[in-house]
Structures are given as structure tokens and as C-alpha cells.
């Protein structure tokens, strides 16, 4: 694994999300450095999805988010979702990953405009098909006709076409066979080794630990602990709750 640089690409300060009057998330500070792969773990309802959704300025519900989100030091808190995407902050949400009525080619045709993506890397379709050879043979198929694993690959590929500065993935392993889970996570690791910055939300802690640089443990909407993976996997709160035994 590459040693991450220290400059934060993505930062959140005083981030709070409320549904109605209920506080669902309260994060004092979270920072992800260039080329870092950070895993966010926690139980169901811990606020993992709420965290990445708030960073993206996106939700399927109507939460109220406050606080500061910075991308490369630029305050993007006031930007709407599409503007954050243009700035380079991408989110691949849980479950709905691709446009089911569009073909694989059409899903991939939607790429970042060079004017918006200056200084960032937008993967070409050739690079995408090198990375995900399965998709190359399914180019004419509709997104809805793909298997779960292929959809996950296409979801990631779609994001890469939009020249991400930081990529957030919400439960990419959900619904996948164990063999595919490791393939997806290894692919994400390879992208990080290639220079991408990634925030990965996962419930599958065992599969996540081998690939991430740092772990963030969320509980009831708050960061309970965070640190390098080697230290965090020995943390009794993680070991007991997610790894099946005391450290």
C-alpha cells in the first residue's frame, strides 16, 4: 500500500445532519488525504450512509445538513449536488448504481466536461474496459440487464468517467458473492494506488480491513474512533463487534 500524503483532499468540520428534529449525524472533523483509502465502518443505523450523503450534498430523503465540507481546501458546503460532482466529489450510492434503461455504452458516455475537470483525471472508455474487461463484452446491454457485480463495476466506471478528485462508495459489497466482494475491493485498492482518494463505507469489516489505509468507526452518528488500520483492527470495539472476538 502506498503511504498517503498529508494534504487533505476531503474535509468535514462540524458536520451535522438532522431528520426532522432528530440528530442523525454529528462529526467534529474528518479529513482524507491525497491517495488515501479510508474505510467507514459501523453497525446498521450508525450514520455511515448519512455521512457520505451529507458530504455529497445528496439524499433520497429530506435531511437538513449543516457544517463545512471542503474539497482541496475549497469550501463546497454551499454547492448543490451536481456542482459538487463538477468540482470532483463523486458518490456511488448504495443499491442504485447505474441507469438501468441506458446501455453500458450510454452509461459511460456521460463524462466530465474538460472545462470542469482541469487537472483531474477522467478515465477514457478504453481505460475503463482495460480495468473492467467484463463490461467490454456487455457494451450494448442495458444497465438493468447486468449482474450485481457488473453493475457495481459499471457504477465505479461511471464515476471514473466524471474525473473524481475524491470518490465515495456506499456499501459496494452489498448483495455480492464473497468472491466478487474481494474483486471489487481489490479494484478500489488498485484505483487508490493509481492516485485516487477514496472514502469507503462498508459493513463487511473483515473484507475491508485488508484494503484500507485508515478506519473510521461510527456509532450512533458520531465518530467513536479513527486511525491507521493496523492499530484500529486491534481496537477491542472493532474486534468484538465486527471481527468475532476480543483483540
Amino acid at each position, binding site marked *: 500500500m502506498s503511504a498517503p500524503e498529508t494534504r487533505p483532499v476531503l474535509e468535514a468540520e462540524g458536520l451535522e445532519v438532522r431528520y426532522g428534529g432528530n440528530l442523525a449525524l454529528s462529526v467534529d472533523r474528518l479529513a482524507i488525504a491525497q491517495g488515501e483509502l479510508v474505510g467507514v465502518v459501523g453497525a446498521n443505523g450508525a450514520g455511515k450512509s448519512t455521512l457520505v450523503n451529507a458530504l*455529497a450534498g*445528496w439524499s*433520497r430523503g429530506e435531511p437538513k445538513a449543516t457544517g463545512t465540507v471542503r474539497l482541496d481546501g475549497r469550501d463546497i458546503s454551499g454547492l*448543490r*449536488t*451536481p456542482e459538487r*460532482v*463538477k468540482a470532483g466529489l*463523486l*458518490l*456511488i*450510492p448504495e443499491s*442504485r448504481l447505474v*441507469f*438501468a*434503461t*441506458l446501455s453500458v455504452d*450510454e452509461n459511460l*458516455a*456521460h463524462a*466530465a466536461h474538460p472545462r470542469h475537470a482541469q487537472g483531474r483525471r477522467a478515465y477514457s472508455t478504453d481505460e475503463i474496459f482495460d480495468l473492467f474487461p467484463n463490461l467490454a463484452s456487455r457494451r450494448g446491454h442495458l444497465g438493468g440487464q447486468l449482474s450485481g457485480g457488473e453493475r457495481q463495476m459499471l457504477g465505479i466506471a*461511471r464515476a471514473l468517467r*466524471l474525473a473524481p478528485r475524491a470518490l465515495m462508495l456506499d456499501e459496494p459489497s452489498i448483495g455480492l458473492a464473497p468472491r466478487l466482494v474481494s474483486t471489487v475491493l481489490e479494484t478500489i485498492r488498485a484505483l487508490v494506488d493509481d492516485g485516487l482518494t477514496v472514502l469507503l463505507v462498508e459493513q463487511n469489516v473483515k473484507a475491508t480491513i485488508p484494503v484500507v489505509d485508515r478506519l473510521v468507526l461510527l456509532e450512533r452518528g458520531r465518530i467513536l474512533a479513527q486511525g491507521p488500520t493496523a492499530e484500529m483492527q486491534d481496537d477491542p470495539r472493532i474486534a468484538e463487534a465486527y471481527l468475532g472476538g476480543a483483540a
Partner: protein
Amino acid sequence: MNFAQQALNGLILGHAFALIAIGWTVLLGTARLVNFAHGQMYMIGAFVAWFVMSSWGLPYLLAVPAAMLAGVIIGWIMQATLLRLTIKQDLVSIMIVTLGFGHMLEGAAGLSFGSTGQILDTPLSLKDIYIGDLWITWQDVAIVIVTIAVFIALKLVLEKSRLGRLVRMVAEDPKLALLAGVDVRRVYLGVFAFEGAAVALAAAVVAPRTPILTSMGFQEVIITFVVVVLGGIGSVTGSYLAGLGLGFFTAFFGAYVSQAYATAAMFGVLIVVLALRPGGLAARAGGR
């Protein structure tokens, strides 16, 4: 009335119905929106064309884009007003607001254009074509040609262009489209403006067949509703086929049964088709 003349009438009526409905088809397919001011927007399109020709002396070829421009402006204003409701997909409120808009348009048209009927004469509507015993006007030919051209252009734009892809992305999942960097609000505004332009174009081309009144519009909403639902909500090809089918049905029903009950019969067809095939005749997702 012979059978061939009725078939010809049905063909022309069917294309007219399809053209009147096309804006709503895209609106419903893309934004999952209804617009019960559609009929009054048709009326405004017809009156704007009539006004700029009779008062300003503009030729018909300029009156058509003038009507479309009025449609775009009305559509844009409506959607700008409805944007929050659209994003929330609050269909009941949207239905009520568009009904209200329709009545406001009708009132404004009455004030501006008066309440007496007018004839939208065009150079094409005054020129007859006789084929044996069959009779049509060049305006009828224009209806068929314009409708086919609009449907082909729309299909090409939706299926082959970047704009069409964006519209289909929003149609399928507006929330996911946001995460792809699509400005969903602009797409909604554009679709409403398209609906305004399309229904005004339909008015400028179809309305010369009959006298125009500021109180008209209800019939056009009903026709549009039947065509859009029969065609499979959001399906462009389905709308074309449904319009055509409804045109033939209306022509033959009016000629051989009763003109007075043609609208009631349209709803009869709608109920039967939906009972047998709930998705409509050619249901397909994504606004195609």
C-alpha cells in the same frame, strides 16, 4: 361519406392528436408531471398565431415560431413556479396548480383576444386537394408531415444525442442523475419549455382546421390524456401509434355512429385498453 374519405380523415386526425399530445408525453415520461393547462396552452398558441398574422401582418411561416416562443415562455414560467413541487413530485399540488394556470390563461386570453370565435386562416388551409372523390387541404398534409418530422426528430434527439441521454437519465432516476452531475432543475425547465413549444406548434398547425375560441382547450386535454395513457406513459412511439389509432376511431365513430358521443367513446376505448393492457399499448420506460 365513403370509407376511404373517413380513413383519410382518421389519418389526419390521428396525426393531429399525436402532435397535440407529444409535449405531454415527454413531460410525463421525463418529469413524471401532469399539466392540466395543456389545453389552454394549445388555445394560447392558436391565438398568438392568429394575432400576429391578423394584427401584425406576419406571414404564417413566422406566426408558427411566434406561437412556439409564447409556448416556451409560458412553459418556462409554469415550471419555474412549480419547481419545488416538481422536485418533491407532489402530483396533487401540481395538478391543482396547473388547473389554476389553465384558468388564468383562459382569462388572460379572453381579456386580450376577446370572447368571439376566430378563424385561423393560413395559406395552406385555403388550398384544396382532390384525389377522385377524396378531399383534403394542404393544411392537412402539413399536419401529417410536421407530426412525422417532430416524432422522428424527437426519437433521434432522445436516443442519439447527449441532451436526450440527460433527459432519459432524469426520467429514470432524478436523484441518481444529480450524482452524475446532471442539473436536474434545468432539465425540468427545458422539458416544460419543450412542452410549451410543442403544443403551440400543434396549435399553429392543427387549429386552422376549426374555429378557435378562448374557451377551448378541454377537448385537447382529454385527447392528450387518452393518447398519452394509451400509448404507455412516456413512450414517444406509443403516443404516435395511440394518436393514430384514436384518430381512426374518432373518424369512423363520428361518421358511422355519432359525432356527439365521440369523446365518451374515446374514454370507453381507454377503459377497455387499460383493463386488457394496464401499461398502455406500447409502454416503455425512459421517455422513448
